[in-house]
């Protein structure tokens, strides 16, 4: 169906979610698919001009040169073989290509692994929405009946801890914090001790935003990983990279570098309620094979949805 592993939602709630996602992605849809349709609808048959316009549309959606070349290669090949009698058929080819890119196997694969507490680290460059995402994740997971503890490991940005405290309260989860300027690994250590003592199911670690070019800060993340692993076997079970949907081709570099430093197991794409298409996620999935786990579609507590390739691509194509 629309959402993987048919969580714990009733059909009505599911439909509601789908509607919300469609609505939120409306802007995205208008730009990517709306324009693909406009291109395809305006021509009686596929010709070189139409193909070029189609290419422009994909590039304009931040798909990047490489993914665009791949998709257009498939469209052109099909066109040559006469498999695209109508513009509509081109749409099918594009859809399949995009879907193929997004369908990558899970890397974490810890759901139900039984370890307690599970540790999820949330990482990313500055301003992508890590803290907000942690808040929403906490709320989502608490809603599934799990006991959540949030670790405020962003000890750098002024008021980041206060911001997270508000989210912790909203989502009804516990918060372990230190003072600003503290050692993030130390907070993490404390949080994991607390989690063990309180029989918490899952620890969400909010880390400070950092540019992937700052090697000392990337090493700090690696240290946190090690601290987590020493404290809890197999931790961190998930390292989630938060990517802003407005990000362009640098998103790929970010994903590459964060993966190298921290072993990213999943992506969270935020700010999809804007006009940006989040097209960079295709590039990331294609090159690095990292699955997208969640998408952020607004500022409210419930505006974080589980991701599934079909529903994402289909909501683009509906």
């Amino acid at each position, binding site marked *: 169906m629309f959402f993987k592993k048919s969580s714990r939602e009733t059909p009505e709630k599911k439909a509601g979610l789908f509607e919300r996602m469609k609505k939120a992605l409306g802007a995205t849809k208008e730009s990517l698919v709306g324009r693909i349709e406009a291109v395809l609808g305006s021509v009686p048959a596929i010709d070189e001009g139409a193909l070029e316009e189609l290419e*422009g549309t994909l590039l304009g959606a931040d798909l*990047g040169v490489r993914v665009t070349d791949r998709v257009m290669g498939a469209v052109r090949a099909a066109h040559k073989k006469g498999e695209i009698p109508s513009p509509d058929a081109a749409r099918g080819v594009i859809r399949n290509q995009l879907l193929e890119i997004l369908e990558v196997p899970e890397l974490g694969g810890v759901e139900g692994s039984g370890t307690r507490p599970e540790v999820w680290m949330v990482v990313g460059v*500055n301003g*992508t929405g890590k803290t907000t995402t942690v808040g929403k994740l906490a709320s989502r997971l608490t809603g599934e009946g799990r006991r959540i503890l949030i670790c405020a490991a962003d000890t750098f940005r*002024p008021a980041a801890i206060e*911001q997270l405290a508000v989210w912790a309260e909203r989502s009804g989860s516990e918060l372990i914090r230190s003072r600003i300027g503290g050692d993030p690994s130390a907070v993490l250590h404390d949080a994991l001790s607390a989690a063990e003592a309180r029989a918490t199911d899952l620890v969400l670690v909010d880390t400070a935003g950092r540019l992937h070019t700052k090697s000392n800060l990337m090493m700090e993340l690696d240290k946190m990983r090690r601290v987590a692993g020493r404290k809890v076997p197999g931790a961190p079970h998930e390292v989630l990279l938060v990517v802003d949907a407005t990000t362009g*081709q640098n998103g790929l570099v970010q994903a590459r570098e964060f993966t190298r430093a921290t072993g990213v197991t999943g992506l969270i794409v935020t700010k999809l309620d*804007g006009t*940006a298409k989040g097209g960079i996620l295709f590039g990331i999935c294609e090159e690095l094979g990292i699955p997208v786990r969640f998408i952020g579609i607004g500022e409210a507590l419930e505006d974080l949805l589980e991701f599934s390739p079909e529903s994402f691509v289909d909501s683009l194509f509906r």
Partner: protein
Amino acid sequence: MLDGLANKLQKILRNLSGQGRVSERHVEETAREIRNALLDADVHFKLAKEFVERVKQRALGQEVIQSLTPGQQVIRVVRDELVELLGGEQAGLSFSRQPPSVFLMVGLQGSGKTTSSAKLARWLSKNNHTPLLVSVDVYRPAAVEQLRVLCAAHRLGWFDDPGDQDPVSRAEKGLRHARNGGYDVLIIDTAGRLHIDDEMMLELDRIRKATSPVEVLLVADAMTGQDAVRSAREFHEKMGLTGVILTKMDGDARGGAALSIKSVTGQSIKFVGTGENVDALEPFFPDRLAGRILGMGDVLSLIEKAEDAVDREQAEAMAEKIRKDEFTLEDFRDQLRQIRKMGPLEQILGMLPNMGPLRGLGQMKVDEKELIHIEAIIDSMTRTERRNHQILNGARKKRIARGSGRPVSEINQLLKQYVETRKMMRSLSRGIMPRLMKGMKFPR
């Protein structure tokens, strides 16, 4: 990236000189490579297309065919065009005749408005202004607190009325406070918002009407992709932007979004954010960004300018090594030899601009003999040692000392210099270069 665009173009255009005319294929391949470089840098695809058309006309004329290195020539043309598009001249801030001048900071969520507000205030106070900051972000948890902490830490003027949760009235109060308190600039830090959120855009408009800002500054993330065109256009249409602050330029995003923003709004980029520190705000230089968009920093212009003195292929190989951080002691020695070929060292050092990590180098006294000693030391090392200085332990150093006739202390000093040089070169290739290149004079 140097190998990216420059080499690709070089390959395509290699056989160009000497041929009577440029073939259609050459033109198309070149155009495509330039286009891809621009797209990789997030320049909007329509802009990239137009741009390439224009460059095609200019670059593939006589000028290029006669050139010995057509690839480099094309790139130079491309870069000149980019600089022109980015605004050529550097643009400053405007102030209203009657203080306080109101600066309104606007932008999408997470673009860096709060940090940039504090940075701008800091920059202003260093330039003899007395800025006051007020946050009207009542939505993001702890946003007001974030600005307060920044202001307190850097002793910047700050206003708040905790009881008031209305952004417009908060802005008005800030303005009154600035006027009464003798501040000459009021910086209003607004909440991040989507350009398609009508309600929030309306709120922004109300703040604008209530405070009549002389600067409406769009804070934009250098990592933004194709959507930059759309968000910048909307913000401009609804708010009448007067300038742009491009943030997170300390990363490795190539910043093509700046070109998009400039072209849809017509407004200049006034500042760039270059770090997390409050002092990391710098005026914008179009030529620096142009090189960066093309993904070659200014290592390329260094090559171009040193071409006369230095073997070309060797220089390119060197740039590649610097980029990959594979600069060995052997390379260090080669460099010294080449520098000596260029003329007396003191003269060369005098050509370097007196800033950044090179500050003071021009005045340095250099003993030419020292260079000979350094060569002797490096010559006394084994090949493995030259390629990996980290294996140099006490015993090895002693052997080298005997071989070169220099004391161990001098070997240690050399190693220290080498490590420093390596560090400096790495940072040069990552973007300090453009600053250094300004005013750098190479002998022709």
